């Protein structure tokens, strides 16, 4: 059985969804938890159209039923988990009736869902940004892990907590230490031994010992001048970050800004220097997918003009600042540096991934890779800890002035800000502009016709956009993407962040609609 929560798989991860649909056709059960009635709902045994941002209340409600009706996996909980009592105490404060009041899913359905989840083993939970892009994003993830541990669905094939990662190499960028707190392979920068190891490998005396800034802190720093030089590699922040007006003010405040990209875009307008980069299929390398599988990327075409591979550009800057780096190809960087320095990648070498990639952890060259983590309930840290979490509402909720909740995401036919897909023949033909997706009931109440140009506005900005009246969207919700500069949802979104991860609340802010 599957539970898909906060994930519109058929549009955001189309090929992954085909395997899920195959399993459903072969008899697997499917529970979809999502405010929208997206395509996967057609295949579901149960659809729980919860209110935006009420996930924790619903999940705690499910766990309440599992504990009250004694449906959970005692053996797994006792053998593999810590802090059950704390979880139980928390879940007991979310009886189905209370969970129903917060989530909008009636108590009977919550009970039925809990019983259904407990009736089958294993259950695989898949989630995407519908879970993480909230001010309670981290707690949402914890809550899903709590549920799966309680059901004993961890460490088994077709079980587990499975984030479907958004971008082709977002997993890899994390693994590589493009994060302010860890070196490649998740080795902490505040750990002296790790610093010593990397300093030695990189031929430097010492390395900075405190955690760096996360993106929203960097952006703030541009305004208060704590950050003066800003280097943006392959990101179109001016369209992708919440509250475009604020973001553009921050970018305009940079003292010296460097962009490295394959196209000019809304962000390069703010740059002092732009480096032209080689694109996908113009140089060799590796991507790491959602399954932690490291796969090869190969060269098909030469880079145009004077464009150069990104690793080459970084190497040239290092050289001009007195550092001569040895590796001179992506393969040398991977085989001689990355896989040597990151223990989990130690066994992955280019020679081994000529065909199918390998899934880390893969510590030695004889290791076959690890498709499933936490096998037999052995968590990395020993016992898995339940982390009791309380529901918190989104930072901005609808009110009289802004009565709709805006949720944002990606559509099938484009990718992010269309720097790539907007330049592929045909894709603009199948989706040529942004729409505001609204419910039939709301359209009727506001006298808005399908395809009519309307105004959507929030406390931060307004956009004019065509209404797409659809049964997918529940009453009281507006759903938009951020593919087009015109009508980009990020003119409206709220720059409120999860306090731990500083992930923005793209899935919930308050907006109003008006006819033009």
């Amino acid at each position, binding site marked *: 059985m599957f539970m898909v929560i906060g994930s519109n798989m058929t549009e955001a991860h189309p090929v992954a969804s085909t395997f899920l649909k195959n399993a459903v056709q072969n008899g697997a059960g499917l529970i979809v938890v999502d405010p929208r009635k997206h395509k996967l709902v057609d295949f579901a045994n149960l659809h729980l159209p919860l209110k935006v941002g009420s996930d924790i209340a619903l999940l705690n409600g499910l766990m309440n039923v599992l504990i009250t009706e004694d449906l959970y996996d005692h053996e797994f909980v006792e053998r593999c988990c810590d802090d059950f009592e704390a979880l139980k105490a928390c879940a007991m404060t979310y009886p189905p009736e209370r969970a129903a009041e917060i989530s909008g899913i009636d108590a009977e359905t919550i009970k039925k869902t809990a019983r259904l989840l407990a009736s089958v083993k294993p259950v695989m939970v898949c989630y995407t940004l519908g879970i993480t892009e909230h001010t309670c994003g981290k707690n949402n993830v914890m809550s899903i892990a709590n549920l799966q541990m309680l059901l004993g669905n961890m460490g088994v094939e077709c079980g587990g907590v499975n984030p479907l990662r958004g971008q082709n190499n977002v997993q890899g960028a994390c693994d*590589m230490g493009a994060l302010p707190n860890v070196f*490649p392979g998740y080795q902490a920068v505040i750990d002296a031994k790790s610093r010593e190891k990397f300093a030695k490998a990189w031929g430097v005396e010492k390395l900075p010992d405190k955690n760096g800034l996360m993106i929203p802190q960097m952006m703030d720093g541009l305004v208060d001048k704590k950050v003066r030089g800003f280097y943006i590699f392959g990101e179109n922040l001016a369209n992708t970050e919440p509250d475009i007006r604020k973001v553009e003010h921050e970018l305009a405040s940079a*003292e010296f800004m460097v962009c490295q990209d394959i196209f000019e875009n809304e962000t390069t307008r703010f740059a002092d220097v732009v480096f032209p980069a080689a694109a996908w299929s113009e140089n060799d390398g590796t991507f790491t997918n959602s399954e932690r599988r490291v796969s090869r990327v190969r060269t098909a075409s030469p880079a145009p003009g004077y464009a150069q591979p990104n690793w080459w550009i970084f190497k040239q800057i290092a050289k001009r600042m007195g550092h001569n780096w040895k590796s001179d190809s992506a393969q040398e960087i991977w085989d001689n540096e990355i896989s040597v320095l990151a223990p989990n990648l130690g066994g992955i070498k280019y020679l081994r991934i000529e065909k199918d990639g390998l899934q880390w952890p893969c510590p030695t060259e004889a290791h076959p890779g690890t498709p499933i983590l936490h096998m037999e309930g052995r968590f990395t840290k020993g016992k898995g800890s339940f982390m009791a979490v309380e529901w918190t509402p989104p930072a901005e909720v609808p009110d009289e002035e802004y009565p709709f909740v805006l949720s944002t995401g990606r559509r099938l036919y484009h990718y992010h800000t269309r720097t790539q897909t907007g330049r592929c023949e045909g894709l603009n*033909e*199948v989706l040529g502009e942004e729409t505001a997706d609204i419910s039939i009931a709301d359209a009727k109440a506001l006298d808005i016709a399908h395809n009519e140009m309307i105004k959507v506005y929030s406390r931060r900005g307004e956009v004019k956009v065509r209404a797409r009246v659809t049964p997918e969207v529940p009453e009281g919700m507006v759903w938009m993407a951020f593919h087009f500069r015109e009508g980009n949802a990020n003119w409206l979104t709220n720059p409120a962040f999860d306090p731990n991860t500083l992930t923005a609340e793209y899935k919930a802010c308050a907006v109003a609609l008006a006819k033009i």
Partner: protein
Amino acid sequence: MMQQSNSIIINGHTCLFEPGETILEVAQRYRIDIPTLCHLKGTTPTGACRICIVEMEGRKDLIASCTTPAAEGMVIRTESPKVISHRKTILELMLNSGNHNCAIGSSKEESWTDFQMKTLVNDQNEDLCPAWGDCELQNLAYRYQVKGRTTGEPQPAMMVPAERDNPFIIRDSTRCILCGRCVAACNQVQVNRAIDFGYRGSDSKIIAGTDDTLMGSDCVFCGECVQACPVGALVEKKAMGHGRPWETQKIRTTCPYCGVGCQQLLHVKDKKIVKVTGVEDGAPNMGRLCIKGRFGYDFIYSKERLLTPLIRGNAGNGNADEDNDGTGKKGKLRPATWDEALDLVAQKFTEIIENHGPDALAGVSCARSINEDSYQMQKLFRAVFKTNNIDHCART
């Protein structure tokens, strides 16, 4: 010789089988070639095309190997005279059922018959079938030396113009052999349920929605049906005229879009990608792709690509140009050499570090680019600039 249990004999070879395996599956494991057309791996066998028929000892009629489970002691012949004769008949019927103009000796127009010229009228752009050289029916026609009909009047079904109103897939029912692979690909593999068999008997054809165009149906243009089509009934529009199959080099790579990491085969001619297909049996996608993976490759050839480094008019030299677009930046970006741009960046970053400390620098890496690039950028920030202010969009 003692018979091993769970074994059958194919063309004199003893082949072991797992219970439930079909004769075709056993043969394929032993690399014994039985031709197929309607068979699509991983989907329910239909036995529709009958081309995989084989002869079984002790049985008068020929049996479809794709639907018949192997059973202890079967003695199978896959290329007996009887089998070959039947296959020839099947191929002849298929070739005659539609617009299959490949089986002619010459491409010179004067050697073409009226029949062939008439069926070509509706082809619009192509003299030859676009699948020419990449067609399983053509391959079988050659293998068994079968020629299609070249005289008489074309049937009305052969005169239906191809559907070309969407940007991705050309759908030509006159070349369809009704094998049903596209239907299986759409309904059983991708489960988009956009196309199916429609009508009955001789009117039978593949329909989208309620016999609509693909654009007017639930089709999401994943192109799985094109990859499955054994003939020229479904072809990639973007690849048309950009190279024949034998002219292209096939390069395996990983898709640049979402986090699934689908394995693609880039069909490359003269160092340019002309078509993309899924890597059959490659993990994790087992040959499947979506619309972006299959058709979203040509952005790299855009005329808007950045070709040289660019430097802001006043950057580094203090020109007092006007702020022209509300970005707070003065002057326009102008082309520069690598040395000029790299020197300027190194100089500016060095100045900032000297005047304000290394933490006055911050960088955002790219979740779209390769691992090696992200590694190199964080190394630059940590080892050279001496700051941990490096992040990427995993959080936003």
